[in-house]
């Protein structure tokens, strides 16, 4: 057991946790948080692979590291976009829940004019 | 390197780490929000200050030392202002209740 393996275990656990939150939590904001958690778990896996590829005097393989930086930027852009969508949904309907297929019909009235 | 800066570093960093512990204990044990805020600022000022002080003999002059001192000054600035902001917020919160 070394430090790389420790972080190598941390990554999958974060992916599992993020996926769990994404499935079970009904609030979209919490789903966005869970999705970000899932993303960072994946990035950690890349980081572990990069650390294993340490060579040529570098602490890690720079190619996966650069991929992670691109990933963080894109994840941020997606998060900002998702939050804006969510706030707009709230402005329009006064609620911020996805239609969960509730049979009692408590979901938002859908009168499309 | 002679032993004198070593001893100085060890003492200063140990004292700084102690203040971090004190700050945490205060944050956990103090009875209300405003006194807890008081504990927080101790860790900011003294804990980090002593650690930066202890690290100074180990870094290269002048840029390494300049960066370390900037880190401390920046946290002084933000720490004191954040304390004020949170205190104001807590007071308004209590006024609403």
């Amino acid at each position, binding site marked *: 057991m070394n430090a790389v393996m420790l972080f190598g275990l*941390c990554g999958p656990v974060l992916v599992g*946790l993020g996926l769990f939150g994404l499935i079970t939590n009904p609030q979209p*904001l919490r789903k966005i948080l869970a999705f970000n958690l899932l993303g960072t778990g994946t990035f950690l896996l890349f980081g572990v692979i990069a*650390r294993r590829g340490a060579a040529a005097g*570098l602490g*890690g393989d720079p190619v996966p590291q650069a991929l992670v930086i691109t990933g963080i930027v894109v994840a941020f852009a*997606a998060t900002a976009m998702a939050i804006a969508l969510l706030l707009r949904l709230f402005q329009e309907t006064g609620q911020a829940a996805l239609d969960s297929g509730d049979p009692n019909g408590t979901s938002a009235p859908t009168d499309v004019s | 390197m002679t032993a004198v800066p070593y001893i100085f570093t060890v003492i200063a960093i140990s004292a700084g780490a102690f203040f971090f512990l004190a700050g945490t204990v205060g944050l956990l044990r103090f009875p209300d929000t405003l006194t807890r805020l008081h504990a927080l600022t101790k860790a900011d000022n003294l804990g980090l200050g002593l650690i930066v002080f202890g690290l100074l003999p180990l870094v290269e002059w002048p840029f390494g030392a300049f960066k370390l001192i900037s880190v401390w000054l920046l946290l002084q600035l933000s720490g004191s202002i954040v304390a004020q902001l949170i205190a104001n917020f807590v007071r308004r919160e209590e006024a609403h209740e």
Partner: protein
Amino acid sequence: MTITFIFDAILVVLLLTVAIWIIVARAAFSAVLAFVAYGLLLAVVWVELSAIDIALTEAAIGSGVTGMILLGAASRLRETEAAVVSAGRPLILAAALLCAVIAAALAALVLSPPSTVFTLAPETMAHLHESGLGNPVAGVLFVYRAFDTLLEKVVVVLALVGVWSLAPDRFWGGIPGLQVSQQPNSVLTLLSQLLPPLGIVFGIYMFWTGANNPGGAFQGGTVLAAMWILVMIAGLQNPPSTNWRWLRVLVVLGPAIFLAIGLAGFGLAGAFLAYPPGYAKPLIIVAEAALTLSIGVALGLLAAGPPERVAQQ
């Protein structure tokens, strides 16, 4: 068992505790606060994985703009939380099982060491000197994978277009609905007068040192964005109206210059995004300078949100 391993173990335990809290916390607001702490711990994790460039990116984005957007959203949506019906027990159990299986499979993959370790580090270092850069990650981003980096910057611009287009028609081109401080608070004003000059210096330093040391355009631009947002929140400067021509020019300036350099590569070096020999570093610096500015403006506007007021003429 070395002392470094103990440090890493403490770090991982902390990271996972905070991650669990993000998922199970009752109130969204405290989950978001935990997410801010999570980003901070993650930056330390990246340092431990010898990925300082990523640590800088995570520190800038996680403790800066992302936290701010999420906190704003959580406080606006607070009143909707009461109506939420949580998932049923069978679904939770099934999801937990599924996620445990996936995590276990991933962990098994990670823990079974490959027979030959595959790495591109020697290849990267072998040709890095031709670009004139000293930071291998910057080399990968701007030389070997320049096309990806160009598209990544375009994604940020597209996200901004997407956020703006969520405004109701009558507010198109109006002023973003950033929540501005309601108390003309002297402490906040003081902070937003003292910090931005330092932040601007640090942002430029990040971009400049990025050629040879960890750092770069995105990290620098994010700091600039955070400083701009601070000034807007304190009410020292109003958010600009989004139909202001120069604002839009600034947003696309970086990607446009990068694209122009890429197209010039056809004529000067025989391929898209190829740099003529000997001119790689100056061209990359020019592109990065423009990108730093554009990213700063674009991220600030992303955080300010869609237009919610009509622009005054």
